[in-house]
């Protein structure tokens, strides 16, 4: 690949990636064996960006390269994401989430069996907030989707791993205690999560 083309593809990759890309991986994707060449192309890109005072920069972080915003505009980025940071969950969503956390992977029908009500609205909220994801399909009739929790789930609840969750048996209700009635899934949180408030 010729230099201009290589630089252009590099720019594309550094833009689109959601994690730092090591030189080795860039070589593989670009089909280029000369890591030194990739390195100097990145340097060129860096100085191109700097010389036109672009508001985006190419950073070398621990494991690799990635585009990032410059600190000058941090206030605006924070403002953009301000609404997103607050995460309020309805009790229906929380109950659904705890069922998934303890019983994963499981299907929607299995969650509904436990909760005794439809959970599609709660599930949609959890998917939207990336607390839950599809982890595969169950090999039964219809191959229903299987759900599990995400790394975001752990981060949000301050857990290092799933094993940090208390054993489910510790929540066994005392005989007298009735479980609270299943609450309506509240739609409120959807709008606030969406920055444009669509």
């Amino acid at each position: 690949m010729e230099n201009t083309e290589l630089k252009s593809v590099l720019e594309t990759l550094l833009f689109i990636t959601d994690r730092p890309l090591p030189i080795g991986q860039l070589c593989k994707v670009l089909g280029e064996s000369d890591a030194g060449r990739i390195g100097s192309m990145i340097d060129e890109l860096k100085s191109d960006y700097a010389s036109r005072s672009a508001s985006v920069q190419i950073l070398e972080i621990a494991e690799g390269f990635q585009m990032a915003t410059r600190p000058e505009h941090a206030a605006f980025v924070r403002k953009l994401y301000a609404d997103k940071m607050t995460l309020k969950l309805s009790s229906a969503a929380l109950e659904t989430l705890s069922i998934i956390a303890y019983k994963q992977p499981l299907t929607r029908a299995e969650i509904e069996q436990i909760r005794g009500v439809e959970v599609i609205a709660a599930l949609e909220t959890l998917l939207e907030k990336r607390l839950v994801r599809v982890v595969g399909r169950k090999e039964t009739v219809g191959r229903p989707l299987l759900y599990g929790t995400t790394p975001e789930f752990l981060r949000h609840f301050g857990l290092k791993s799933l094993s940090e969750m208390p054993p489910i048996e510790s929540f066994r209700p005392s005989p007298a205690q009735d479980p609270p009635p299943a609450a309506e899934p509240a739609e409120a949180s959807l709008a606030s999560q969406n920055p444009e408030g669509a």
Partner: protein
Amino acid sequence: MTPVVKDYEVHLEMFEGPLDLLLFLIKKNDLDIYDIPISQITQEYLSYLDLMKDLNLEVAGEFLVLASTLMQIKARTLLPSQDSEEEGPDPREELVAKLVEYQKYKEAAKFLEARAERFKDVFYRGSPHFSDEEKTLSIGVFDLLATLREVLDRAEEGGMEVAGEEFPIEDKMRKILHLLESRPYVFFKDIFQDERKRLAILTCFLALLELIKLQKVFARQDGPFAEILIYRKEAPASAEGGIDHGEHGTQERP
């Protein structure tokens, strides 16, 4: 009636409904949606239903409801026309209206598909990654069934069946894979080449479905009602340099 083929755990995911089948038959026979020959369509519709039962496919209740609607319309056309006003809504008109309505959305779906194809090469930060590729039969179930029907029609009539004769599905799966060993694809019909017995043909068909489900082969059709081809599925090339999203179906946001 019990299904002809029993005890096989082959399940075809059927997301198509009775309206899809009717629209398929209308297109296949080049009929006018506003002027459907009701006897012909009813007979064909019922024969597909029988075939689906023979294959032990899960036939949704809606299929049976529509079957009885069709027979009701057919019965009406045989009666001398009377004051139809008293009999409430004309079931034929209702059915045509439903078909026309649904047909619009089927065309709109094609519009969407073409759009997605045009924009498939533009990526955004935050474009979702798909860890579990949507499994789609690239051809319709009814296209498969239509071809199967042709094969069955050509085969010898059922009189030759030997009671208790067995056609293990595994044998048929091996046979199909064997056919594909020396070439990249075969015609769908070629799979049934040396089969003469109804049960053997049905079993062969189920074997094919199973292989599709196991992603050992895939079916392709270039254009509506064109010949169906069965391809061997190559082992996926190692995703060199790819980010492993196995544990990362969702993206982390800032």
